[in-house]
Every structure is written in C-alpha cells, then in structure tokens.
C-alpha cells in the first residue's frame, strides 16, 4: 500500500509540476493582445468542440457575456461581450467536450486600453 501511494504521488507530482499547456486554438481578441474595443469573443478549434462553459473576468471581477453559439459541437464559437468594458486586464476561461469525449479547458488573456 505504501509503495502504491508513493508511486502515485510521484506520477502526479511529475504531471502537476509540468506547466499546464493546452493546445493553442485561435481566439478573438488574440491571446495577450491589447485592443481598444472588443466587438466579439471568438474561439476557433481544429475539431468540433462543445463549449459547455465560458466566463469573462475583467478588472472588476466576472462579467456577463452573451453566448451566440449554443451547446452544439462547433469549430467556431462566438459570444458577445458586455457593452461597457473598462480598461484593464481580461481573462476568458472556457470548458468543453471534444469530439472524442475528452473534457477540455483553456483560457486566454487580453488587455483593453482606453
């Protein structure tokens, strides 16, 4: 039992120590971009992805976004940002189910400059 726990800890520590890195999908706004306005939030995937959750966190905390794309698997996901986006750092976090059934998640940051 002790050996199992030790080995398990070793495997998990190795996995957790590695910097998490999800596949780079294309986004609007682009990752790490600085933009003046945000017309739309888009995620583009190589394979159809069912986006099950998405959130936008701004300088003042979580903000409402309106999904345009439903819960169907898509290669292009669209959501509308709030009307008023103050200057500052923003993060989009998303979760989804890929076509092979894997739960997926990712996030990207951008900055709004007044």
């Amino acid at each position, binding site marked *: 039992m002790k*050996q*199992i726990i030790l*080995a*398990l800890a070793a*495997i*998990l520590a*190795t*996995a*957790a120590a*590695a*910097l*998490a*890195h*999800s*596949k780079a999908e294309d986004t609007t706004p682009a990752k790490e971009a600085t933009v003046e306005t945000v017309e739309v939030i888009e995620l583009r995937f190589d394979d159809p992805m*069912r986006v*099950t*959750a998405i*959130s936008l966190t701004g300088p003042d905390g979580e903000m409402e976004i309106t999904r345009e794309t439903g*819960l169907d698997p898509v290669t292009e996901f669209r959501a509308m940002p709030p009307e008023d986006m103050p200057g500052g750092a923003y993060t989009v*976090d998303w*979760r*989804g*189910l890929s*076509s*092979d*059934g*894997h*739960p*997926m*998640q*990712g996030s990207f940051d951008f900055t709004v400059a007044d």
Partner: protein
Amino acid sequence: MDGLSPIDGWALLAILAKAAGYAAALVAMGGPLFVAVFRSAPGDVLRVARQLAVGAAILGLAVLALRFGIRSARISGMGFEGAVDPMMLGLVWDSPLGTAALWRGAGELLILAVLIEGTIGLTASLLGALLVAVSYTLVGHSLGDPRWLLAVLVGVHLLAGAFWIGALAPLHRAAGLTGGTVLLHRFGIIASGTVAVLILAGLTFAWLMIGSFGGLFGTAYGWTLIAKIIVVTGLLGLAANNKLRLVPALASGDPTASTNLRRSIRMEIIAVALILLATATLTSITTPPVNL
C-alpha cells in the same frame, strides 16, 4: 511540456476513478476468460476467479456512474453543483462516454452470469467481456485514424491484459494449494503468448499515437508512456522470474517456493495498479503527439 491539460482536483479525481474503472473492467473481463481457459483448475481457484469477477463487475458499474458525475463537474466548471446538473449530465450522455457506458454497463451485467456454472453462464459472461472490451474502443484516443486499426489494437490489448490481470488472484490462491502447480505451469505457457500479443498491440498503438521518435521525449504523453513502460518492464521481470524460477521450484517441492511465489504475485498486483494509473493519466490529461 507539450500537450498537458490543466490539472485541478477534479482532473486528479477523474484519473483515479478512471484507473479504478480500468481495474474493475479488467478483473471482471479476466474472470470468465480464466474460467474458460482453465476449466479443470481446482474448485477453490475457480471460485476465486468467479467471485472476484462479479465483485469487479459491480464495482465497475458504480465507478461508471461516478465518472459521469466527475465529467459533468469538469465540463461545467461548477464543481459539485455541476456533477449533478441534469443538462451537463445529458451532454456527457450524448458524448462518446455515454455510448461506451451502454456497452460497458451491458457487458459488466452479463459478466455476472459467470456465477452460473456450465456452458450457458460462461458463454454469457465471455460475451460480456467482449462487450466491455468493445466499449473502450468507442472513446478517447482510439477514435483517431486509422480508426478500425486503433479499435482492434485497443480491444486486443484489453482482452490480453484482462487474461493476465484477472488470473493474478486465482493464481495467488493456486500457489498456496498442493495441486496448484500444474495450473501455474500451464498459465506460464499460455501467458507467454498472450503477453507478447498484449505488448505488441500496445506498442503499435503507442507508435500510431506518437508518430515519431522525437514525440516520445518532450511531450506529456511521451513521458507518461515512458513511465508506464518502465513499470511494465518491472512487471515482465517478475512474471519471467515466476515462470522460470519460482514455479519450477514449487514443482520440485522447494518448501519456500510457495511463499516466494505468492509474494511475487502480490508485487505483480502492485505493479498493475501503477500501470493502470499511468494509463489513466495518459488517456485523461495528455494529448497524443500526432494531434499536437
């Protein structure tokens, strides 16, 4: 590190549940296979194989339900609330895991028939083992290209693995019986063939996932696979030692052989647990290099 998904508590829980599901499925599948191949084994040994298969099948059904909740929690980003969210559970049900669950659930229920002695019970439980193997070809990395080849490789890999893993506890019992030597010797001969098939299928699948030697080093998938192969090598060493040294010693009446062999089989079980954890890690949070 390329191709590693973000890891949180739910992802770790998913890995543990998946590994438990593998163990349950393999032991459940292995019971009927053991009974079919070694019909003349001592009654005590066959009883262990049957009872363990049934316990594993029931555990497998419970783990399957648990995994639905874990997956719903992960895709919802809502934690426990998401685990029981009907809409999220519905999405998981509509995903390949839902299809696989139907096959796996049906297979695990059929395996319960291994308790019915005779041809009908055995046939039903063998069909169950086949359904469980097929269920694993309907999800995850085996859905890549070439689809049919990957599915066949996974199916064969699992059946061969189940024959070995399902036999460990019955053989542990046999190693403590006076009449167990013949069975242990026969298992050694048959397993030489099935283990070769197991490894060949696994390596072919891995090669199709990695695509190049460089993909083995520097990707999360590659490193996890290397960890798995290291433990597999240790397991093969134990198995070879059993077959070539300990079983012959038992046959020649060496008084310490039984204790040594039983300890060695227990170590094999620990190695298998580690292999299943590595495999669950491989199939949960890493992306095959060919997809990077």
